[in-house]
């Protein structure tokens, strides 16, 4: 099994959205929303992007208010937050103008209860032009729709979907050392539509291929294990 970050259709869509966000023309808003059910790898994908590129990752907390959020942002940008909230905001703006960084706000739904917090992010984006990506659960788009001014600034909205059969095939092609036949891919997809479960099946397929010196794994080999 190859240890690589498998690029599913969700990941490709996210990456192209990020490319569009960074190559956007003046006047086009640079905020983005990424949402989907839990367990689809939203945080992982953003973290992977963040590790390869220049990004700061902020995990929100349920109790977070505007001040706390700004303190976290300034801390992530490498500065010690000052005392007054106006100074902290200024610090954040200065740092972002000096060195544009994409901000990832994880679990942004937590902030949806307080308009002032969420609008602070909009202010930060408007003053600096720095891209901000909000990551939310399923229905996050509906929750944030209330904030009209914020919603208008979402240049890109990406919804993470459960894995399709084509995704399972592409994961197998990228990670698995043995070849899987189409019916095997279909079988795995019928059994699992989450990334982690698919990988478990791929490991099984590799073990079967090794034990039986097989070049290609078919559905009957995989379903045989169950019995």
């Amino acid at each position, binding site marked *: *099994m190859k*240890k*690589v*970050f498998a690029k599913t259709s969700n990941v490709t869509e996210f990456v192209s959205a990020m490319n569009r966000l960074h190559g956007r023309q003046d006047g086009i808003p640079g905020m983005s929303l990424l949402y989907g059910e839990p367990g689809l790898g939203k*945080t*992982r994908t953003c*973290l*992977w992007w*963040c*590790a*390869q590129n220049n990004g*700061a*990752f902020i*995990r929100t907390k349920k109790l977070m208010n505007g001040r706390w959020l700004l303190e976290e942002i300034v*801390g*992530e*940008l*490498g500065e010690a937050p000052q005392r007054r909230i106006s100074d902290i905001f200024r610090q954040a703006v200065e740092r972002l103008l000096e060195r544009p960084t994409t901000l990832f706000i*994880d679990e942004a739904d937590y902030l949806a209860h307080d308009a002032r917090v969420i609008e602070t992010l909009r202010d930060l984006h408007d003053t600096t032009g720095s891209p901000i990506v909000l990551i939310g659960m399923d229905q996050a788009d509906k929750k944030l729709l209330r904030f009209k001014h914020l919603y208008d600034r979402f240049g890109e909205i990406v919804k993470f979907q459960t894995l399709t059969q084509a995704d399972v095939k592409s994961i197998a092609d990228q990670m698995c050392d043995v070849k899987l036949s189409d019916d095997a891919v279909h079988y795995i997809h019928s059994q699992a539509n989450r990334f*982690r479960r698919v*990988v*478990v099946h*791929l*490991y099984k397929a590799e073990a079967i291929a090794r034990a039986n010196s097989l070049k290609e794994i078919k559905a009957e080999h995989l379903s045989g294990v169950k019995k």
Partner: protein
Amino acid sequence: MTVILGKQRDNREKIWKVIRVLREFSIGEVSILVNASGQVISSYLFHLQNAGYVRQSGLRKEADGRNHRLYRLAKNTGPKAPVPCRCIYDPNLDNATVSEGKDVD
């Protein structure tokens, strides 16, 4: 030489960034996200663990059916990655000396 050092620093920054976000992580997990070999990750984690930045927090059975060691970040000091350096600590003088002869407090 500078290229190698640059790459090392780059890897450290990436690893530090990733482990600060993941609450609990295995070496394999980090190596996929950072796109570096498991050896690079474990050697940096070894230094971090010695200095008390991360601690081992148990085992988890992963997709390959084996148990993998889990780590947890114990000291989240900020966005800049801690730099391991070779030094000798002298309890008589209560200071640490880097191998080149510079003092570290």
